[in-house]
């Protein structure tokens, strides 16, 4: 099975103190460290498990600047066979729709049976997967937390729905799936693995290679513009439960019951 996984380089929320910059147009990026968007790791892991089971190959793509190369290489160290960086000056300021159309152009150049994206990105809106499927006119399932290949025509996917319930679908290939965390346990990528792929070939495709008109993407093509960033005001203070551990537990259970948290 030929699998394409879309990944994104994002500021690592667990390893940064995120602050909004003074003019409210972006977050402070000076001290940030970046990593692969967490959901994308699960998507790549799932692709690796499918490939190792039934064969095929995995291509990882990312739309971003030169720095995005780092996250593609990390996913190659994890086990992806190929990486392609979709990068061009004219892509700057692209909104979700533009990113989906850039990826679509790359998909059209190849022959893929399955496209996986993370369910969302730490700094995104969770829209690229769905838009990409629509542009390709392929079937789409979001928030997938279970995946089973039936044959080369069909796969079975599970989605987590309201209340922790699970629904199972059969879906025809080729298709696009957005992958939820928890579908698997992504493998660790060590420094040694990253160094091993440090000099592996990594083509960069720009607007020209992809045959995209510069006006359709980037700032000019964006239909959504960022207007403001702000930190919400602090709300009312939290309630601190007091007493012995047993008493606290009892109070907590009562509270959860009364507010409908548990039945």
């Amino acid at each position: 099975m030929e699998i394409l996984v879309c990944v994104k380089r994002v500021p690592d929320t667990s390893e940064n103190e995120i602050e909004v910059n003074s003019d409210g147009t972006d977050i402070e990026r000076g001290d940030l460290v970046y990593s692969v968007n967490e959901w994308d790791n699960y998507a790549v892991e799932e692709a690796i498990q499918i490939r190792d089971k039934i064969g095929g190959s995995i291509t990882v793509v990312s739309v971003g600047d030169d720095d995005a190369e780092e996250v593609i290489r990390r996913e190659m160290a994890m086990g992806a066979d190929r990486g392609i960086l979709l990068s061009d000056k004219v892509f700057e300021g692209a909104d979700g729709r533009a990113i989906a159309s850039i990826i679509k152009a790359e998909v059209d150049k190849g022959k893929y049976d399955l496209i996986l994206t993370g369910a969302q990105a730490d700094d995104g809106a969770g829209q690229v997967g769905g838009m990409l499927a629509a542009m390709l006119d392929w079937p789409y399932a979001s928030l997938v937390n279970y995946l089973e290949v039936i044959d080369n025509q069909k796969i079975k996917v599970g989605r987590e729905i309201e209340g922790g319930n699970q629904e199972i679908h059969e879906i025809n290939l080729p298709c696009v799936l957005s992958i939820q965390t928890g579908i698997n346990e992504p493998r660790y990528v060590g420094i040694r693995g990253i160094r091993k792929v440090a000099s592996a070939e990594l083509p960069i495709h720009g607007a020209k290679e992809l045959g995209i008109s510069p006006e359709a993407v980037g700032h000019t093509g964006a239909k959504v513009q960022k207007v403001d960033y702000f930190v919400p005001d602090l709300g009312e203070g939290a309630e601190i439960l007091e007493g012995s551990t047993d008493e606290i537990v009892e109070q907590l259970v009562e509270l959860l019951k009364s507010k409908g948290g548990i039945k």
Partner: protein
Amino acid sequence: METVLISPAKAFVIGIPAVIFSILIPIVGTAVFTYIIAKRLAPIVKAKPDPRCDRVKERVANMFKYAIGQYRQPRYQMAGVIHILIFAGFLILSFRSITLVIMGIADGFALPGFGGSMGKVYNLLKDCAATFVLGTCIVAMVRRGIFKPERYAVPPRYGKKDHTWEAIFVLLLISGLMIGDMFFEGSLAAAQLQEGMETEIFIPGTGTWFVVNILRAVPVEQLQTIHLSAYFTHDIIFFFFLCFLPLGKHFHVITSLPNVFFMKLNKGMVKPVRWGVEEEDVEALENFGVKKLEDFTWKHILDFYTCADCGRCSDQCPANAVGRPLSPRFISLKCRDYSFEAYPLRGEMAVSQPLIGNVLSEDEIWSCTTCGACEAECPLLIEYIDKIVDLRRGMVDEGTVPQSLQKPLRALEKRGNPYGKMERKRADWAKDAELKTPVKILKNKETADVLYFADSITSYDDRIQEIGKATARILQAAEIDFGILGPNEKDSGHEVRRFGEEMLFMELKNSNTEAIIKSRVKRIVTSDPHAFNALKNDYIGIAPVEHISQLIARNINAGKIQLKGVEDTEAVYTYHDPCYLGRHNDIYDIPRNVIDAIPDIKRVEMLKCRDRSFCCGGGGLMLFYEPIEEKRMGQMRVEMAKKAGATVIVTACPFCMVNIEDAIKTSGLEGKMEVIDLVELIDRHMIVG
């Protein structure tokens, strides 16, 4: 001496000269034994290199101390005494057994020097030895078969087979050897007595003496049969036992001397990824760590062969005590059994399977805190930490790292600390240390005499920052010119290395080494035993390192630090030995002396202290790991302190502080038990002029 019975060398058995058997049995026995040993050597030959031939004098001395001197045996009194007696008996009786084997071929044979009066003295000695060995075997059989000490049990998850039968079978073999000789000699003496001839001297109460008395009235023809039967019983058991040794836990009879000779001499260190491969070439290695049996070093396979199944390692192992799926004893036994299976005595060698998943489990290998209790206890000096680290290196290379550890590892890679905190905030703790002069940050051209290497937890953890501040105040009180690396300091990487991420460790080490050298300090001090061990044993080419307790002790002795009487006269203090200060670096007395320097302080010892100290739960990355366990190590430790009558636990390690403080809360002992770091205790009692 005239004989009344025909000796084995001259006798006939069913018409065949018995000497034929006397020759055949040793030949067949030795041939089979050689064949088995050759088979057993196969995995050792295929294993990875491990240079262990240096420091020969020290190694020979160790061999005398631990192997021949049985130095660690009495740590378990009953079993230890039994073992020493049987071992001593074996040494004495080895000459007799060799003599007996040859006597079957050459009548009246005596080893050189054992002919005359020396032989007579030896004869008395060996009679005594055989008697106490037999007695000890009976005691041991009763102990193993009836009382069944708990540590020999085989929990279901480690195997179905109970090991009692093997132990008892071997004890029966040994008893058989003793009884065989007693009857061989006793039957002859009985016959001689009946004929009114002179006999050997027998000490009343020895086994042979009893046999002589029992057989006194037995007709000579029957005595002849007994004489020959006893001889061949001894001969057959002797060679059967020899060939049985390499099939199980009694392999240690053969392997323990070399195993102790080749023991690890550098405590606290971790073996390199591959011996003989330079650090800069490690990256290019095709295979990393241990994935298959042959990836172990030859010494580690010898360790597996040498395990005597005594269960002491697991009895001391804190992970085993709290119900984690780890028992060091079964690391050895499972790998030994697998080695026997993959390299069978007959048939083709099997293609080695990955160890993880087939022989060992992931959780088993991640459960170890590398506290070293097992290694401190093993009478045969078997190593575990290096094997665990090598297995983890293999898992890291395969990507099978628990999710709970992946996040801190990534943060260490990106930020140089496992919490993912900003590098530029690394020195923030020092700002509010209530010091006369602010702590120097050794960057750019700034230098100092002493570097205080704080490490990650002291730099970033709210509670542990107090240890950093107390340390800074002590250093200032002792008028030491010191500084910290601040943003230029990265995690020491102590646990990164011990969790198998060698390449990341090397990055951290190289970065720190460069920063330390640039700071031009003359000495390094740290309040974190993990950092202490890393800088002392893992780093090379940096200034000498000491733990803060050493510096405090020196300054107390020099009168530079003066202490007032204990604040709380009601409190009973106990000292908890951090693994990486005590067991890994032999610093036991210094912290105790420092505590005792506080006038009127009351201090008690916990039952498990010094090299038997019980790990608090582990440091560094272990704080992030979510083990499968029934209770917490820290809780068990707090219970031990309570049992000792203590109200304050003094420790000298930030991770012990975290674990024990948590344990006091979760055990509901708040207000009844306290924990304090040694530097905090001294800081509180320091007379500041």
